[in-house]
């Protein structure tokens, strides 16, 4: 199957799904997990499974000999091995499932693949699909009133947005863990006494205005009030990481780890879905997009992921939050076993790994099998739609239902079916 055929097949499946669910007969009750929150880690650039969660025989970049860049090590699950730079996750792999057979064929451009891996489907010429975070926010709302349902720790992007669902299901975002979300955290340089003075002036001016008869104006006044509340000390406490012990903070590692720690604090505050972007290209320049020399320092990225994710699992577990919190690791696409002319790796969509952890699922270390060099799927393929259906099912969203863009029914996933082995 060439690329065009593949795209056309997936797109036809998409429209078939959109239409057929109109007349879908009542099937057995959908799978439903018990997770209440999702922490979704995004590895921007495209994480290569062969160098992380699906290691194969060693290759040699200088001799252009295809294969893993690193050694593999054993994990808590017999028969499941991971790369040597995941030593802290290895003993925890019984709480983790590396889904090794995710696949799609949109590998030419990061934007399109990022969109695919956030919306779960190819781009449409006529509709803007919501991201998985927005769908979960739409279906489940926040866990407690007054908390935002969806927070993004990373750069804002239409791909992460609510699409046709509208701003109500959008995210609050922040790019710096030392500050709260853009717009809802008070600027550091404005002292508390100045804020008091500002609010006093504002309250005085508001008191002079006639009470609005127009509902939209009342709604806006209400938004002003809520916004003052959210930007106040109570909600913004969630962002004060220095309330945590130094030891715990250190166990999470650098800025990416602090983002994961912040995600845990937001879970406790009642946020439903948090995307944590591992987008810090300080370590190797290219981030996970390890073409050419980008691969030389790739192990630092892997180690950073290892440290932060293992600390997150342990921390959540110690607070009895791991079963309630699904951790997801996704990325645009994978990378091939072969090396490019600069000794790095290109893009591969035919098989790549996304990871699930916690969330009350029945974990098995790894799911799905790829061939000797991780290029082809040998057993248990998982489409992007299936992977998304698994996330939805785990967090109690009916993955078979339709959302509506006006009159147009849009199924939550493109006919995805959850990985049944992880439930029950």
């Amino acid at each position: 199957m060439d690329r065009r055929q593949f795209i056309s097949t997936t797109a036809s499946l998409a429209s078939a799904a959109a239409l057929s669910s109109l007349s879908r007969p009542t099937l057995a009750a959908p799978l439903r997990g018990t997770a209440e929150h999702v922490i979704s880690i995004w590895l921007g650039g495209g994480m290569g499974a062969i160098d992380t969660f699906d290691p194969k025989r060693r290759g040699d970049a200088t001799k252009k000999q295809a294969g893993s860049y690193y050694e593999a090590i054993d994990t808590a699950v017999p028969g499941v091995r991971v790369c040597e730079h995941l030593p802290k996750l290895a003993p925890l792999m019984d709480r983790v499932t590396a889904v090794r057979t995710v696949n799609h064929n949109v590998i030419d451009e990061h934007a399109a693949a990022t969109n695919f891996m956030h919306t779960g489907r190819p781009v449409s010429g006529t509709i803007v699909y919501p991201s998985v975070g927005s769908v979960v926010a739409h279906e489940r709302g926040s866990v407690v009133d007054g908390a935002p349902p969806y927070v993004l720790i990373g750069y804002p992007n239409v791909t992460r947005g609510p699409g046709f669902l509208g701003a109500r299901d959008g995210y609050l975002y922040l790019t710096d863990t030392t500050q709260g979300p853009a717009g809802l955290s008070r600027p550091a340089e404005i002292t508390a006494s100045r804020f008091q003075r500002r609010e006093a002036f504002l309250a005085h001016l508001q008191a002079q205005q006639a009470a609005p008869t127009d509902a939209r104006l009342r709604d806006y006044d209400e938004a002003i009030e809520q916004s003052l509340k959210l930007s106040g000390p109570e909600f913004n406490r969630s962002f004060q990481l220095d309330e945590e012990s130094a030891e715990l903070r250190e166990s999470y590692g650098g800025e990416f780890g602090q983002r994961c720690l912040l995600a845990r604090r937001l879970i406790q505050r009642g946020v439903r879905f948090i995307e944590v972007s591992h987008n810090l290209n300080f370590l190797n320049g290219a981030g996970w997009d390890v073409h050419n020399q980008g691969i030389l320092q790739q192990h630092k990225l892997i180690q950073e992921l290892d440290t932060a994710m293992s600390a997150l699992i342990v921390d959540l577990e110690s607070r009895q939050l791991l079963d309630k919190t699904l951790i997801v690791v996704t990325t645009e696409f994978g990378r091939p076993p072969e090396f490019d002319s600069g000794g790095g790796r290109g893009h591969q969509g035919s098989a790549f790994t996304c990871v699930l952890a916690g969330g009350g699922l029945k974990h098995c270390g790894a799911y799905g099998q790829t061939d000797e060099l991780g290029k082809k799927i040998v057993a248990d393929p998982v489409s992007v739609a299936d992977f998304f259906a698994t996330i939805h099912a785990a967090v109690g969203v009916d993955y078979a239902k339709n959302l509506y863009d006006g009159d147009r029914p849009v199924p939550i996933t493109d006919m995805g079916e959850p990985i049944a082995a992880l439930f029950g």
Partner: protein
Amino acid sequence: MPPTAAEAHEFLEEASADKRRRLIERLLDDSRWADHWTSYWQDVLAENPTMINASLNTSGPFRWFLYDSLRDNKPLDRMVTELILQRGSPHEGGSAGFGLAGNNDAPMAAKGQIIASAFLGIELQCARCHDSPYHSTKQRDLYALAAMFERKPVVVPATSRVPAAFFEKKMRESLIRVTLKPNEPVEPVWPFSEVTGSEDNDTLTSRMQRADDPREKLAALVTSPENTRFAQVIVNRVWRRLLGAGIVEPPDDWEGRQPSHPAMLDWLAKEFVAHGYDLKHVARLIMTSQVYQREAIGRNRTTTAELRFFVAPDRRRLTAEQIVDSLYAAAGQPMAVEELTFDPDGRRAASNRLTLGVPQRAWMFANLANERDRPSLNLPKARAVTDILEAFGWSGARQNPRTDRETSPNVLQPGVLANSAASVWLTRVVQDSGLAEAALNAESPEQLVDTIFLSYLSRLPSDAERRPLASALGVGFDERVLPLEEMSKPELPVPLPRVTWSNHLRSEANSIALEMEERARRGPPADPRLRVQWREVYEDVVWSVINLREFVWMP
């Protein structure tokens, strides 16, 4: 953009009976007319440039074509003709940029959908893949428009087909139908003569430069004077933008809708055509009307056509662009953000690394995503401004045409005005800014409060509003200006090396990016001539005014 304090004051003071008429004339001649309408057409025509590789329905930056056309008050039939003909540079601002659609294997079908909803009030979204279930339009209609754009017969791409299996396994009568046969070529034939009144005949071809060019024919059919629908759709869009509700609702989908005032719609459309498709003529007719000048307490948008009486205009919120432009104008600050580009040294081709210049107005901003989430490509000052724009419904990523933005209030709207980085700079009395000059020139605290109200709200404060603010500003008012010897000149930050595409992966690029973010957060320095303690009170007064509901909603 609001009038200056002086302009507002002069208008309020003036007693002559025709002061409104003269103001309307002056504003119609103002270049800001083009700024305001550019953002409208960017949405309606899905202008969607990206600074990086084309994807997700990206177009070229035909914003410059739109702005020039509006600035020159080009007759609208001519602007639409040039748009449909797709001329000039696709990547440097020509209307050819309208013809691009990244990741879209039927780009001309996408453009057909856009021009049908923008100029004819015909909704063809469903027709991409099948006949419309709730409209009379067929898949053939859309692809006939695509064929006219393409200048040759077209076939529906496989990605836009309903698989045969769907119809075979269906459990009940399907809502949708596909009347085109698979692989049937669709000819470039005008599908809308009945609904528009515009026909492909000798009269039409006699007006064309090349009678055998289907794309030119499409332009001629859309803009011909026989096309009464085109003129009506345009005047309805102008009417709606000025009064908050259309004579026909919604403006992009007329099928099965009744105009609330058919005779007026017809008259406005005929005036429009008779005056050479002059948008400003229509705007003038509406603005000088009684209904436009009444207090905005109408509720026309939410009622049915039978009950839409237009007793008064609907209340409107400022658009996202108006809010940002007003904040800059009232603070008297230049829009000092980064150049919108990831490749300032211009090594890569414009087709994949576009440079959109340094924005001077809010509509010039764009989608800032670098799609690789790389901090070294962040543009932190521009991002701070788009935070405000996005909270109020603007989006730089316009994948689909859009007539209406979301206007429902959310916490981020007051949030970004109260707390965001850009609101910190814009409520700061920055060196040499309008706010600084106003403070230095103020004769009394009362007069300064008046100036703030005129600049931000275009009205004078009531006595009750003025009193406590003026008394707070009165403390230390006479000593507010520092003597020269106490003044310390703010230190200019060291210029940073330029991060560009070819060096953005180096680790130095990241430290520069971090420093840029820190500088963006700090913003420009305050005016050293004013005593800090007094200046902060003044800034807090300004803050309270922009955080009033009245700043973003028409009173």
